[in-house]
């Protein structure tokens, strides 16, 4: 019996179309736009100005607080302007435009592909390197990793969990990463264990990736304290709290962080970025993005520089199909649709999903029939139908007592609703409003 989390969960069609496609390096773009706010927390402050010459990996925006992250140039060239540019939301965000010239890397970066497995740094040095490299959670939440690795006073990390679940349908970037960079990932895990000062690490992988499980188990077998656990395929197992429950059996209390049960979770791509940052001195300026969809000519996994536009990625995957209905930033369950394709890839872009027109359209909304399917699939034990009604009627205070802030926005409720009710849309609105309410109470 495979492990999984207890309550709720759904199993959407996996559609991992690009699982067998090796990671390709995308050609360099002509210009890039690198937003200064690519993470949760305060946006970084730009430290370059128009006309500055840049090398690949050079710091261009400095972290402006503890919960913030550095931003590095992903290309070499000249700063065209520091101005607002497009963002996934459509609202203009500050960023740096760079005209690409050649591909000159910072000399400190080790560009060789050799595996560097000996670790000769202590915890503080590793943390400093992670912080300087501007590493954030690459699973999509983009929470600065160094913050996660420094537990607040009085709390101690006991176990490190590596999230190789990739439960979102279509996305395959972490899967490919495990197959192609398993050795590096193990070094990354060891670095994270050292940084956190924990002696146990577990890699959780869903059972629909047997090749990745075999590869990682083989590598982990050489290390006593690293284990690989195959998990039952169930969405949203990649959610931090769900993964902790599945692997350790511990439940993160409402409103608390995973560290309160002694767990720290990092995703596969983040672990690889940690390896590169610490062992190769390479800051986070490129990531693997899955470009996929049933009508896409070549669903692929691309290694792209941050700041490349989405349109270039789509072009590389065979161009925009004719009957395209929606382009989604992320997977089909949690992703948000792009308003246009001239938006840059940022640290949080894990995939680009192109949906044909007939799949993209939402079906007509019907009245709620009280079937309680949303309640039974909610992995957080909430009552989505109630949260939606309260949000619709703008009863924010009651919404707060009904624990709307515990919602992880996995979309299982909307997916399962037989009446096609936009449950998650209203719950998200409720979260925005209740979040503002909570902030307004703080002095």
């Amino acid at each position, binding site marked *: 019996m495979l492990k999984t989390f207890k309550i709720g969960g759904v199993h959407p069609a996996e559609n991992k179309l690009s699982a067998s496609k090796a990671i390709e390096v995308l050609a360099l773009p002509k210009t890039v736009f690198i937003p200064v706010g690519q993470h949760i927390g305060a946006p970084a402050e730009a430290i370059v100005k128009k006309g500055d010459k840049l090398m690949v990996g050079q710091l261009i925006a400095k972290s402006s607080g503890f919960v913030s992250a550095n931003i590095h140039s992903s290309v070499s060239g000249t700063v065209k302007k520091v101005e607002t540019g497009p963002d996934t939301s459509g609202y203009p965000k500050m960023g740096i435009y760079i005209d690409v010239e050649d591909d000159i890397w910072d000399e400190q970066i080790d560009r060789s592909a050799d595996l560097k497995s000996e670790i000769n740094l202590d915890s503080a040095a590793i943390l400093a390197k992670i912080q300087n490299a501007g590493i954030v959670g690459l699973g999509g939440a983009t929470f600065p990793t160094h913050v996660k690795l420094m537990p607040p006073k009085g709390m101690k990390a006991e176990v490190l969990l590596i999230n190789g679940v990739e439960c979102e349908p279509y996305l395959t970037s972490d899967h490919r990463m495990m197959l192609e960079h398993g050795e590096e990932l193990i070094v990354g895990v060891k670095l994270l264990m050292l940084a956190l000062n924990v002696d146990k690490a577990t890699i959780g992988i869903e059972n629909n990736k047997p090749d990745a499980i075999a590869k990682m188990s083989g590598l982990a077998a050489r290390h006593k304290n690293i284990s690989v656990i195959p998990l039952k395929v169930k969405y949203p197992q990649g959610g931090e709290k769900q993964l902790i429950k599945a692997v350790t059996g511990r439940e993160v209390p409402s409103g608390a962080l995973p560290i309160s049960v002694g767990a720290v979770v990092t995703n596969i791509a983040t672990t690889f970025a940690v390896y590169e940052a610490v062992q190769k001195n390479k800051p986070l300026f490129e990531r693997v993005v899955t470009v996929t969809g049933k009508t896409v000519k070549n669903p692929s996994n691309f290694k792209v520089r941050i700041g490349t536009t989405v349109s270039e990625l789509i072009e590389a995957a065979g161009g925009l199909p004719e009957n395209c209905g929606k382009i989604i930033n992320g997977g089909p369950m949690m992703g948000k649709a792009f308003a246009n394709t001239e938006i840059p890839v940022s640290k949080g872009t894990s995939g680009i999903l192109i949906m044909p027109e007939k799949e993209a359209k939402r079906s007509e909304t019907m009245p709620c029939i009280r079937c309680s399917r949303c309640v039974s699939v909610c992995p957080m034990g909430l009552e989505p139908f109630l949260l939606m009604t309260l949000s619709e009627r703008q009863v924010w205070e009651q919404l707060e007592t009904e624990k709307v802030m515990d919602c992880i926005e996995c979309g299982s409720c909307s997916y399962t609703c037989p009446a096609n009710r936009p449950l998650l849309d209203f719950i998200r*609105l409720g979260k925005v409003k209740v979040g503002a309410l909570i902030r307004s109470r703080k002095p």
Partner: protein
Amino acid sequence: MTTIILYTVLTLSIIGVLSAIILYFVAQKFKVYEDPRIGQVETALPGANCGGCGFAGCRAFAEACVSKGELADLFCPVGGNDTMSGVADILGIVAEKKDPRVAVVRCNGTCEHRPKTNFFDGPVSCAIASTLYSGDTGCQYGCLGCGDCVVSCDFDAIHMNPVTGLPEVDDEKCVACGACVRACPKTLIELRKKRPKDRKIYVSCRNQDKGGVARKSCAVACIGCSKCEKECKFDAITIANNLAFIDSDKCTLCRKCVSVCPTNAIIEYNFPPRKVVVAEQPVSAPEKPIEVMVPISTEPKSSEI
């Protein structure tokens, strides 16, 4: 048999009398004095419970009026000056007269003025659309067209025009309660001074982008050129963040700003037709009141970018 009836009646009467005496003293002891004027003021109010005054219903407003004893910050927009003078009479004070106001939608981004760049497929709610993204056109400040204002109106005074995709206020019905102002996530609706014959002049735009960007996304966007500001002799027009604003308290409805606006962003409403001056191109001289402005090319002039 009769004795049983007699005893029963007697016992019950004694219990009744005793209870009445106890209740009388309890009532005296726990008596809550309520100003009778609260009830009177409440009766004088319209009873719409719309919340336009900022209080939770007419009763709460009446309590506030009586407890404060003055009406400086208190005003019932639904009842207007008549109601407030009635309230003032009850309280024995004089009410300050306030100009009646009316809601105005400051966006003219109709389908032909503002081309759609994408299609919103989510639930029909401006609040949700605005938390997700900037909107289905190039203008991030403009109307989303999902009609949260229509839903919020208790007086049936605001409706979506299916042709333009924009909400329209019925001046007759609008009581300026401000519900739509609070409902609009883009803060497009403003309460402006009501003028004779419902005449209005206002900048029908909230776009704070630079001229070129604004013009590219919408043909009738305010580009902040400040021509109207120079034209206005009454200091009613101010320019801030690339956007003109006409103060309805200062505006004298002279209509000079309307003719100088290069993008037709300033709207005049309910005015008689202008006398056409020979050899001058009339910017707006329609026979009917202007509701939709004349479409102009969406291509921005190179000089404006």
